[in-house]
């Protein structure tokens, strides 16, 4: 199942569905990294609200996406991590260091707007 990537102004938004295969995640990673330069986006928001489990591969992919996007000159915000998922992740040591996080899509956009204001 392919993850749609939506363009909203200077931000790309990708919404995870439940039960993504590893191949889907790889595809998403490549898609985001390509499109962020193609659309000259300033930031990427990855919404994981629908994910009620986060395995190590998904977590590592998220971190890789964030770091690759950074190298491509934009910023990443992960939004919508469920409380149970967050708890499970830290217990597994998957803390997404160096990656911005926000409560939900709205918060993520607010965070980026604030950031754009101060940097532009």
């Amino acid at each position, binding site marked *: 199942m392919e993850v749609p990537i939506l363009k909203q102004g200077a931000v790309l938004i990708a919404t995870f569905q439940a039960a993504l295969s590893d191949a889907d995640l790889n595809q998403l990673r490549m898609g985001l990294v390509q499109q962020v330069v193609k659309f000259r986006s300033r930031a990427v928001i990855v919404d994981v609200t629908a994910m009620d489990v986060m395995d190590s591969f998904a977590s590592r992919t998220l971190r890789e996406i964030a770091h690759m996007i950074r190298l491509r000159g934009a910023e990443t915000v992960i939004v919508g991590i469920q*409380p149970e*998922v*967050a*708890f499970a992740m*830290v*217990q597994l040591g998957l*803390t*997404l260091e160096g990656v911005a996080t926000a*409560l939900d899509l709205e*918060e993520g956009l607010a965070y980026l707007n604030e950031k754009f204001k101060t940097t532009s």
Partner: protein
Amino acid sequence: MPRREGTPTPPDPKRTEEPSELLRELVAHLRQNRTQLREEWVVRITETRLLTAMTKEEIFAEATSVYDSYVEALETEAFEALQAYARNLSERIIPRGVETHEVVGIVLLLRDVLARSLFAKYQNDFKKLNRILDAYEPAANRIANTVAVGFVQERERVIRQQQEAIRELSTPVLQVRERLLILPIIGVIDPQRARQLTEQLLRGIRTNRAKVVVIDITGVAAMDLTVANNLVQTVEASRLLGATVIVTGLSPEIAQTLVTIGVDLGKMNTVGDLQGGIEQAERLLGYKVEKLAEPR
């Protein structure tokens, strides 16, 4: 049937009484001398300074009922009633601060007082004394055992109940400003409570849409490595939900623990006291608190 303990008696051809008959005789003797033996026992209890938490009258009243239950248990060898009595007694005296050694002590004293009275009664018939003691000792030991176990079980039940109560003491997640939560933690944290706290906080962050959380641990004197790690995990999990955590009120001991486990201080935002923590949280949220006038 209780196994016989104590000195094994050589086979005695003249032996006529069954152990149960002996016990019956014994019980009759104890019933007859109830007043005197009970008083002697109470004197011994006071002399040994047991049950200091109770008044003389209370000791006497308890001693009477313990004595009767004891004799009854000897007679019927039905230990269920005694067990129930021991539990009931423990329920009453545990809140008074009676210790395990005191309960075991008084039961052993009673055993000795009664054994002495048997010595006195049968001192002229050594063989009979021997047989009586053969019947008496296992039963008496079993009674002492039952009472002690009953007391300890009751004590453990009380402890379990209290632990439960402490656990259920809700640790409130409080909203003090829009998007600012406070989590005051008081008392001892064990791994189970730490886990519960984390889950409560994460749910609170989600429902209150919090951006900043102040965790105040002024009321926590010390924490072990596991719990300190749990605290760090709580901070990290909150960040995954997009909330910044400020930890306030770390005691020197906890600071020591955190340094020992090598916490990444870049991840932990700490302020000395709760007031400072709230002030910093307000700054993060863009609040500016101004004093409008001197308080009257």
